[in-house]
């Protein structure tokens, strides 16, 4: 039997984690606390037992947004990474911080009191351009100086000499 190892981390790569069981309960939360914590319209989370969550590089910084809730992030780049309720044996990770977010489809939504009225139209927004089509020069410059950690584990980060 092969061991489950699902990896993720922050944008700069200072914090990396591995999940050692298949995560489940993927959902998006529209509540105002998740909105503000993520700077977005909702937060997407998927959970595992805490015993299956391993921090493989760096440390989580934690903001206790209320007594029951701890929100973990990287204090070097800001990526929102985890949520943990002190009464729960589980921990949630932000789906966008997973190295392969496309594999983790949300099954539910909550925090509906703060859902944007136009949320249902989001997928149909005008626009069909890739970053490159939108701005080829900018895209080339990003590619030449990209400081984002790659979407897989690395032995050493940042690369020596950078």
């Amino acid at each position, binding site marked *: 039997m092969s061991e489950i190892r699902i990896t993720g981390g922050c*944008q700069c790569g200072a914090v990396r984690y591995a999940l050692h069981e298949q995560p489940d309960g993927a*959902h*998006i939360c529209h509540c*105002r*606390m998740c*909105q*503000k*914590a*993520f*700077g*977005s319209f*909702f937060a*997407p989370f998927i959970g595992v037992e805490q015993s299956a969550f391993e921090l493989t590089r760096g440390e989580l*910084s934690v*903001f206790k*947004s*209320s007594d*029951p809730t701890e929100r973990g*992030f*990287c204090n070097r*780049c*800001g*990526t*929102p*990474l985890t949520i943990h*309720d002190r009464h729960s044996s589980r921990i949630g990770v932000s*789906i*966008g*911080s997973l190295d392969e*977010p496309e594999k983790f*489809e*949300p*099954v*539910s*939504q*909550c925090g*509906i009191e703060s859902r*944007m*009225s*136009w*949320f*249902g139209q*989001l*997928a149909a*927004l*005008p*626009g*069909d*351009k*890739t*970053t490159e089509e*939108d701005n080829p020069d*900018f895209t080339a*410059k*990003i590619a*030449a*100086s990209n*400081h*984002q950690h790659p*979407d897989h584990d690395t032995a050493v980060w940042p690369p020596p000499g950078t």
Partner: protein
Amino acid sequence: MAEARITGGCQCGAMRYEARSLKDNSHVCHCRMCQKASGNFFAALVGVPLEDFAWTRGTPAAFRSSEHVERGFCRDCGTPLFFRHDRNQHISMTIGSFDNPAAIPLAFQLGMEGRLPQVDQLASLKDYGTTEDADPDGTAAIRKTTRQHPDHDTAVWPAEVDA
């Protein structure tokens, strides 16, 4: 005419900002860099002309995600706050960090190479209702002890604790 004053900040309230105008470029960006920076399926951003923007509390931290781009956040709570290209005459703020994001409807989307298949399913996800309906006790505990800054400016923050 009263001058528009549009405010926002991070979750913990250590960073607060104000905008006196917004560009008409509110959008979501699906590119993989915006995804990972925000831990989300996309980043939601709107531009503010530099001359119309000011930090009113705190100095944000920033990560230079590539040579000409800085991404700002609060080092105390992590909220992603801005995307800024060195040569742009505007700063792009995360829409969710504004105090009233509902007032900033989206105009378009881009970064389509990174668009996740999940985005098409979002609107039809099974709905567990409001936070209070789903978990009244948990919601009461959060409400009683929330450390989130309110969605308006405050003279003093954190609120002074009654002795």
